[in-house]
């Protein structure tokens, strides 16, 4: 239930935000139900990559092609925009209800993405290099630019409150929840449509290949055989509301910077610890309250080691940890919010996902990785997202009961 306890430092009141509706599309399924059924059924969505690449890797590609936008929105048509449109197919009604209830200017739209429409820009730019002009159909502002999808959401839902894109690489999808909480807590808005989306493209896959972080095979988070990540694509949407009546609540969003290195995590997980502690502090909770951690768990040697240290230091060795990267791949800017939807499923169905690919698990990490199907009471889930530039986010969700 909603709590209004004075913060221990007297700075801010503790309160939680209702999550009334959610949706996701990713390698596990084009619609929320399919994706969550596959998660429960321990079916991986990783498959050989369909992009023309000069090396072996697996990808968390969508199982089907997202349908094109209606023709009058053709100028916005990118794979990213199509995914956003699909999310709206599932959540249009609750968003329109929120707009009707609070008024158009009291609802915000926040979008998390790291790639924007660059998949289209890659093709347009190649065409420019070959023919000296960009294709006639290419529109930089409405396809490449981050804000293009915001315009699309506004047009379809009549949301007229603040709208912006949060882009902090691989933490974007969780980071935008921190912005959402700020908008709600300062009473700037009453509801926030939070959307995160990224699509497969050459720039990110070849970029991670350049960093030698890609696994040629299925990723193995927290396994002693882990050897890199699989890139995925996907989208998620969550509708936050100041209303008190809901089954799931956003309890806290902790943020920090590593101040260590652009692409490598702080080995001790110092930044990750700060983010997790901040999420707990905002929620007025103790480490013992956390029933499950949906880890960032990308499957690289250093990331998993650093994250395990942070989890061990903050939450101890017994909390069941799972990485869902073995199902979806690393969805970059979309990952944080898709995993929030997975955390919601854990809370509502009292299950902890099997950490697919974690066997044989790395006992030196010292944490408890959930390698068997587990059904138990789940009241609070912590979801981690970390990114280049040392951007860390820990999101705390609960049933509130």
């Amino acid at each position: 239930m909603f709590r209004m306890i004075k913060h221990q430092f007297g700075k801010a009141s503790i309160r939680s935000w209702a999550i009334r509706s959610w949706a996701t599309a990713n390698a596990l399924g084009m619609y929320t139900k399919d994706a969550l059924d596959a998660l429960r059924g321990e079916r991986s969505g990783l498959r050989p990559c369909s992009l023309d690449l000069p090396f072996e890797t697996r990808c968390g590609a969508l199982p089907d092609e997202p349908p094109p936008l209606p023709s009058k929105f053709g100028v916005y048509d990118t794979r990213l925009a199509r995914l956003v449109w699909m999310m709206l197919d599932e959540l249009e009604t609750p968003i329109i209800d929120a707009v009707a209830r609070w008024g158009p200017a009291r609802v915000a739209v926040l979008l998390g993405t790291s790639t924007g429409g660059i998949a289209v820009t890659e093709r347009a730019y190649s065409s420019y290099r070959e023919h000296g002009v960009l294709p006639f159909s290419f529109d930089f502002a409405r396809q490449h630019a981050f804000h293009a999808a915001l315009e699309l959401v506004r047009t379809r839902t009549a949301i007229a409150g603040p709208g912006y894109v949060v882009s902090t690489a691989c933490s974007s999808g969780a980071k935008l929840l921190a912005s959402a909480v700020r908008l709600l807590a300062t009473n700037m808005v009453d509801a926030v449509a939070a959307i995160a989306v990224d699509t497969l493209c050459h720039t990110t896959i070849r970029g991670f290949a350049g960093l030698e972080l890609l696994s040629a095979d299925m990723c193995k988070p927290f396994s002693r055989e882990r050897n890199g990540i699989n890139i995925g694509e996907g989208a998620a949407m969550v509708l936050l509301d100041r209303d008190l009546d809901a089954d799931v609540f956003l309890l806290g969003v902790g943020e920090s910077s590593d101040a260590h290195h652009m692409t490598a995590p702080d080995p001790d997980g110092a930044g990750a610890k700060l983010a997790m502690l901040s999420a707990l502090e905002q929620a007025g909770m103790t480490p013992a309250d956390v029933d499950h951690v949906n880890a960032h768990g990308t499957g690289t040697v250093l990331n998993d080691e650093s994250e395990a240290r942070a989890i061990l230091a903050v939450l101890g060795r017994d909390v069941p940890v799972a990485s869902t990267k073995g199902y979806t791949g690393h969805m970059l800017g979309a990952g944080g919010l898709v995993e929030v939807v997975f955390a919601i499923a854990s809370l509502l169905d009292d299950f902890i996902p099997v950490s697919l690919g974690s066997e044989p698990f790395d006992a030196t990490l010292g944490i408890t990785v959930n390698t068997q199907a587990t059904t138990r009471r789940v009241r609070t889930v912590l979801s981690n997202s970390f990114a280049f530039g040392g951007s860390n986010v820990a999101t705390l969700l609960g049933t509130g009961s």
Partner: protein
Amino acid sequence: MLPRPDVCVAARLLGFGICCPEQQELAQSLAQWLGTRSVLTSAEAELLPIRARKRTSLLTRMTIAALAQASRESGVSTSDSPIVFGSAYGEIATTVTLLDSVHAGEPRLSPLRFHASIHNTAVGQVSIACGNRRPCTAIAAGSCTAAMTVLEALTMVVRHQTRVLLVLADETSPPPFTACGSSLAIALAFEPMASAVAHPCVTTARIGPMHRKVATLSWQPPGSLRSNPVAAALCVVRHFVGQRSGSVPLELMAPSENDHDLGSSAGAYEPWHVELLFES
């Protein structure tokens, strides 16, 4: 009409930094228009180690130069304050070098360029160089970028009761793109209203949704800066420098030019406005 008081966030603006690095003449006319001599004309990212400086884009360097200036002027630390970065198009020059590599069929992109292409490159670099472990974020909102970045920064000031550094920057779009005509970075330093720190020019900034339409900006920045999405924040600096009171419309989520061909739903709503109110 003033915003409803319950939908305002207030903070004190303590100082600014500006970097206009490409043309001396433009920087001079900007300085004249703003009424200040402190417009940086070279993008020196002195906060970064020398080796790191050479590898960074103009966007990152001018962002850091403006931040450092705002920090010096205001006393708001780059090592212990959250930093909010706003840019409509981000690291577009670096991104174009990656597009060249992809076009050339390179299997593996340069790791340095790849991580320098992310939207949060500049704040990541500053946080590393200054040992800053506070939350830093990077946002974009097209022509509303200045307004939305200010909104993000002010909600951060109020929610977390902390000083915040904000920096807006967009660089000249490299060919074949033409979205932004001239590079510009603007940094602002804010502190919570409750903390009473004496400062020669105390100014209040408030922000909220306006329930009326603001048609156009009543001012124009010089020349090619007009196409820079973050130039909308120049009027904040002008008000601050001139110690003017009154309101500054920051952006305008006015329906964009193309809305008429998107059917009747777009443009039918009351848009959100961000307006800073200065009280001397």
